[in-house]
């Protein structure tokens, strides 16, 4: 298992998911490597894994271009390669597993539209808009809201918090200062939603606003929902468990799909205890 950066909590979770799934099978041994956010390190680690003669490589690449060749070389030497989250170029790999940020954003938009009954004022706190996840979570959200068909819905404030909680809090303070009425805050990640909640609480307005986030990490978003801070969060799945399932299928000699798109799960006050409600 070659991980591009264990500095990110979500990627720590991905490794944990792989570990938990693998531990269910006594005949599996997983070697974990952390490339510490360097494509060249990750490239070397893939080459090491090939030399070690592993049966399957699971890799969550840092970047597509520099890792395409080492992955292709491993694949051509007959080692199945499962790619997680980020793509490589071409088709020289066994299977790709990834989540769809547009779809998750769309589900969040749909949930907010339905919860508000087509009537309400919305604040959107966006991630880094130069990043693909930020753009996708924004695009899907707008699709899910269906503003054209719901004239009662209005995005009254839209700020960029760059995935960072302190920034989200500052942006939310601005939103609160310029809007006397806010019904829902949609943040592109859970820390952003938490920062917004802190700002609303400082203004004494947290009760009148619903907070929706994305990612639903067990120790983060799910906890916030459990504590009643967030009203909803949507899982951005790591695919760690699915990777082990597919690895076993490959080892059994079964045909596996080239492209697997993961669904999401909705965590609300009612569903958080049972591990969220799967969506499709």
């Amino acid at each position, binding site marked *: 298992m070659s991980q591009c950066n264990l500095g990110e909590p979500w990627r720590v979770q991905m490794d944990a998911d792989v570990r938990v799934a693998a531990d269910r099978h006594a005949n599996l041994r997983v070697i974990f490597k952390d490339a510490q956010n360097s494509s060249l390190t990750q490239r070397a680690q893939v080459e090491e894994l090939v030399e070690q003669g592993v049966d399957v490589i699971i890799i969550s690449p840092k970047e597509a271009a520099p890792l395409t060749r080492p992955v292709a070389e491993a694949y051509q030497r007959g080692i199945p390669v499962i790619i997680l989250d980020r793509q490589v170029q071409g088709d020289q790999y066994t299977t790709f597993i990834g989540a769809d940020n547009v779809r998750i954003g769309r589900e969040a938009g749909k949930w907010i539209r339905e919860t508000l009954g087509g009537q309400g004022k919305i604040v959107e706190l966006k991630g880094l*808009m130069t990043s693909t996840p930020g753009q996708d979570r924004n695009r899907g959200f707008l699709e899910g809201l269906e503003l054209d068909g719901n004239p009662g819905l209005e995005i009254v404030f839209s700020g960029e918090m760059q995935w960072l909680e*302190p920034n989200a809090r500052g942006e939310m*303070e*601005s939103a609160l200062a310029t809007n006397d009425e806010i019904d829902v805050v949609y943040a592109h990640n859970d820390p952003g939603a938490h920062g917004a909640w*802190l700002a609303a609480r*400082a203004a004494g307005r947290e009760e009148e606003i619903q907070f929706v986030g994305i990612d639903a990490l067990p120790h983060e978003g799910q906890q916030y929902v459990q504590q009643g801070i967030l009203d909803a969060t949507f899982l951005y799945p790591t695919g760690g468990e699915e990777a082990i399932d597919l690895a076993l299928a490959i080892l059994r000699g079964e045909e596996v799909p080239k492209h697997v798109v993961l669904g999401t799960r909705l965590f609300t006050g009612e569903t958080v205890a049972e591990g969220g409600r799967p969506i499709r």
Partner: protein
Amino acid sequence: MGTEWGSRLRQWWSTPVARALLALLLMIAIGFVFSADGAFFRWSVHRDMLRQVSVFGILACGMTVVIISAGIDLSVSSLLALAAVTFAWLTMPHGWPALAAIPVVLAVGAVLGSISGVLVARMRIQPFIVTLAMMVFGRGLAKVISGGRKITNYVTDADGSSQVVDLPEIFGIIDSRVLWGNLSIVTIIFLACVLITWIVLSRLRLGRHIYAVGGNMEAARLSGVPVRLTLITAYALSGFFAAVAGICQAAQETHGDPETGMAYELDAIAMVVIGGTSLAGGKGSVILTLIGVLTIGYLQKILSLNAAPEATRLMLTGAIIICAVLFQRERE
């Protein structure tokens, strides 16, 4: 009579404080024009701006001291994260009382800062290199202590079971407001740091030594200034203030995040420079930094209130830093 006043005004106008103040007033005037439907005229907006800028301002206090000594401290953002993590770690999973945890955290900041100081003063390594190394080291240490994840009030016990403990009272106290909700505690902490820095720089012999070392290290040495001790103290102060900022950051985030405060050192340096303190050392004051902090704080608040896109914000911030520095220099 009139000419006397005129010349006095001209004299005052040529001081750095006057020029920095003018830049700040200009910024506030821009806020009046782009008031976001009058939101800028409400005190709560200014109160929130002051809250948001306080952590940066606390870092900028230490940065001012180091920059006047002709150095730079890139490690403040990492020491902030380290302090935030240590503070959360001591108070939440370990249940330390705040009065015990705070001195320990402040000491950690001061000790790491003084290690930078020793490397600069005794080993004669450039401050940029030393504090760059400390920046990387401090971030790593924060990740080690936290195990790479946020330390929250969701605590895992030794037997593996997890539970939510009450957020320590101190978090709520630091992240609250006084004067009938009109001033954040973190802002008061920031102003206290400004006061401490002002006393150090303007009232203590140490302050004179810092200016002397920053102005001309060789001359300072020849005139009997304890150069090494002065430099070590300057970096220790910066580390101390970074720890103060870290405690404030943890309290405001309600957890200790090892990733927090990324690149804050650049904001702190920008605030010092916009105020008019020269990176060459030997000149400047914390009052200038206070004005610089407010100038950047208002800039960010005005852009945020008007929901300016991030790209615009970055470009405007860059342009305004250059304008402010040119403005400072023109009349020198």
